[in-house]
Every structure is written in C-alpha cells, then in structure tokens.
C-alpha cells in the first residue's frame, strides 16, 4: 500500500516538473526563435521588455490573455474551442515517455527520470502525434473560413504522408536497439550513438520531423503568403496562443525524440558517475537540435505543395523503406 502511495506521489511530482520545464522551455523558445531569426536577418529581435528582452514571453502571455477573444459567427463553436486544446494536450502528452535521464537515487528510492517507462514508448509518441493533427485539422475546418479549410486539407494530407515515413524511418533504430522502450533505445547506444551507424536515417528523420511539425520549408498549412495563416486564421487571444504553444511543444518533442533515438539521449561523458549530468547532456542536445530548427527556418524558402507531397511519397518513403530493409539485413547477418 505504501509502495502504491509512493509510486503515485513520484509520478505526480515527475509530471508536474516535466510539464513546468517543458512550458518554460517553450516560452523561452519563442523568444530564442525571434532573437536568432532577427540576427539571421541582420536585425536585433525583441530587446525592449526587460534586460535583453528576457521578459518578452511574459509580456506576450499577458497580451494574449487580455486580448479580445473572437469566435466567428460562421464557426462550429464547440470544435472551434476544442481544437487548440486537443493540439496542446497531444503535444504535452508526448513528453510523458521521453527519458531525460538515467536512474537516480532520491530519498532511498531508485527513481527513473521518465514519467512513464512503458513498453510501447515510441508507438505511444506516434499515437499522440496523430491525435495532435486533429487539433490543426479541426481548427481550420471549424473556423468556417475558406482559407482555414484549405489549411486543414493541406495539414491532413501532409501529416498523413509524413507520419508514415517518420514511422518507417524510426524502424531502423528500433531494429538496432531491439526494443520500442525509449530507455532501452538510449541504453543500446552506450557504446556508440545510432547517428554514427545511420547518418542517412538521421537526416531523413530531421526532414520528416520538420514536415510533421509544419515547420518551414514544410509550413504548408499556414503558408501566410498564399493562405493568410491557414488553419489558425480566425484564432485570436489565448486560443491562438494555445496553438502556438502546441506547435513549439511539438517541436521540442521532435528534438527530444531525435536526441533519444539517434544522439544517445542522456548519455554523455561522465553522465553515469556525476548525478545531474545526464539531464544536462539531454538538455544540451535538445537545444542544439532546436537551434538547427530555427536556423533552417531562416535559411530555406517554402516549398510548393505538390513538391512536398511528391517528395514525401516518391523520395522519403522509398528511402525509409530501403533503410529498414538494409538495417534489418545487416542486423540479421551480424
């Protein structure tokens, strides 16, 4: 009975810490993106609120809370309200299985630094990624706006295509690690990161991941130059902020998953001997990947829609399939 109680308390504490850290990271990610994009475009970015603009996310939060909340008369009201919540719920749920450290000993208990170390960890992430798509698709449709519906259609088609490829791409690492449990996948990389064995897969993952989170150059659902923001065109105030947070949280999840699958997760020099170093390594790796996501946004122009779909099905998908076959062959013959 006491074990059950301790288990519940531990799970609760971990959940609160992970959500708090994730939301704080997401808030400052928006600032980092604006600052880095500013530097890439030879300007300063936000630097008025607080020292170096460090209070900008808080100011943004207050602004979106106090702005007028508009629901269009044409909108499907329950779905219009529900859609941003689905998006953020799905994005935050994915953090539950991401391991951000090894096992530490606290108060005489061995605590795994992951909320749910489940057998089907990777599949769980994909399940909630597919659910998160409904937030975007329903958001655009329920607005009762033609640009919104167009954005939804694009989001649905694009995400289905790239989700298939993303799942196949991850097959390579699953075969190498022999498990879907994310902690097992990290521990299988204790000698060498999987990115060394599968550099091509890592690149494919980054491309498919960018498409999955609708980021430039794949930001078709909200292409502002042709769709005037697409699925979130009618959203204002906190509902828009929820979509915004969901997008950035999803970006952090994709980066954290890339770290777990290819970059050795929390493993790094002295990560097993010095307590606290594991999560730090994990954090650094995620930050590097997130920086890459911001950097490429400032670099690449948006692709055309038919190019994206063709690339997804005719280039990415066959490459992922070939990668799976070759990896399985090598592992079987080893």
């Amino acid at each position, binding site marked *: 009975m006491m*074990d059950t109680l301790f288990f519940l308390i531990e799970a609760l504490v971990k959940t609160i810490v992970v959500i708090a850290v994730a939301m704080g990271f997401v808030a400052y990610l928006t600032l980092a993106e604006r600052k880095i994009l500013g530097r890439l475009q030879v300007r300063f970015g936000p630097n008025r609120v607080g020292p170096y603009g460090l209070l900008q996310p808080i100011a943004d939060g207050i602004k979106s809370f106090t702005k007028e909340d508009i629901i269009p008369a044409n909108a*499907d009201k329950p779905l219009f309200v529900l859609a941003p919540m689905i998006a953020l719920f799905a994005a935050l749920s994915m953090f539950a299985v991401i391991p951000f450290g090894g096992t530490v000993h606290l108060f005489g208990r061995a605590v795994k630094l992951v909320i749910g170390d489940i*057998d*089907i960890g990777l*599949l*769980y992430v994909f*399940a909630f990624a*597919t659910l998160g*798509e409904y937030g975007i698709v329903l958001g655009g449709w329920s607005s009762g706006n033609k640009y919104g519906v167009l954005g939804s*259609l694009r989001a649905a088609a694009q995400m289905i295509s790239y989700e298939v490829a993303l799942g196949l791409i991850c097959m390579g690492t699953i075969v190498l690690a022999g498990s879907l449990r994310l902690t097992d996948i990290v521990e299988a990389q204790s000698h060498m990161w999987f990115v060394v064995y599968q550099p091509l897969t890592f690149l494919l993952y980054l491309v498919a991941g960018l498409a999955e989170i609708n980021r430039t150059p794949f930001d078709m659902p909200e292409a502002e130059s042709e769709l005037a923001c697409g699925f979130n065109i009618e959203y204002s105030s906190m509902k828009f902020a929820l979509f915004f947070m969901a997008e950035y949280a999803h970006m952090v999840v994709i980066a954290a998953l890339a770290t777990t699958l290819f970059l050795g997760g929390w493993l790094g020099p002295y990560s097993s001997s010095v307590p606290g170093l594991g999560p730090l390594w994990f954090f650094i790796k995620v930050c590097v990947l997130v920086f890459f996501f911001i950097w490429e946004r400032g670099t690449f122009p948006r692709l055309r829609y038919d190019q994206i779909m063709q690339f997804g099905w005719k280039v990415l998908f066959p490459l992922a399939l070939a990668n799976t076959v070759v990896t399985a062959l090598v592992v079987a013959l080893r």
Partner: protein
Amino acid sequence: MSDFGFITPLFQWAVFLIAALIALFGAIMMVTRRNPIHGALWLIVAFFSLAVIYLTLNAQFIAVAQVVVYAGAIMMLIIFVIMLIHVETEFLVKRKLSGPKIIGAFITVILFLEVAAAVLSLGGRTAGATTGTALTGSVAEVGNALYGKYLFPFEIASILLLIGIVGAVVLARRGKD
C-alpha cells in the same frame, strides 16, 4: 509490468466501465449526428475508449495500433475526404428510409445477435483468462505470433491489401488514359 501491480480489480473494473460507457455513447452520437464531420469525431471518441479497454486487458500493442491506425490514420483520411467533397452541406437534407439503410439495419441486428450469442456462450470464463496472464499483448508477443506461427496468413493478408490498392488505382485511372 510490475509498476501496475497495484491496480486492483476494482480499479480495473471502474476504468472498464467508464471506457465502455464512453465508447457506447460515442457510437450512439456518431450514428445520430447529421453533420458527417461530427459523426466522424464521435467515432474517434469511440475508437479511443476502445483503446482504453484494450489497455485494461493488457493488450498494449493492440491499444496503440487502435489509436494510430483507426483513430489516427483511417479517420483522418475519412475527415479529409468529407472536407474535400464538402458533404457537410448535405446534412440539412431530411433523412428518409431507403433500401440500403433497411438492408444495413438488418445486417447490423444479425451481427449484434451473433456477437451477443458468442459472448453469452462463453460465460464468465474469458475475464479471468485475460486479466490473469500479464503481457499477453506486448509488442514482442504479437510480433512473435505474427512473424512466427501466423506468418503465412499474415503475408497472404498483406498481398491481398496490396492487390486491393493496385486494383483501386487501375480502376480510378481507366477513364483517363
């Protein structure tokens, strides 16, 4: 899964009851909605609560497959098609009884009776069997069964699906070339 050892049968029963009620409610709402998008969304709710029921039976892989494949991919395609051809404007049309509907209702009743007869003939035997053995539905178990004992039917099924896809493409393109 020793982590879940504390789940008492009572708790499991409560989770099952809630999930089952939500699944039933979602299914009823799905059938009665006029707007096809709303119907599709209630179907997703039903699928999702079915996945929870699979989890209470320790069938983790089936549960996640249910969410990824049915609630995720297939329903997304259905919603995509509904949005694309704009049938949501047709929900204003009054419903009337037609031949296909009567046949459909008839088949549904027969199916329901079949399932009910099967469940009643089993009695209370299955409940103990499924909850007693842990890990019956883990990924490794399902994989070993699919690629070991049932390899031949599995491959036949995949070839059948492939033929279906190719056939659909051929039929769709016949008029164009």
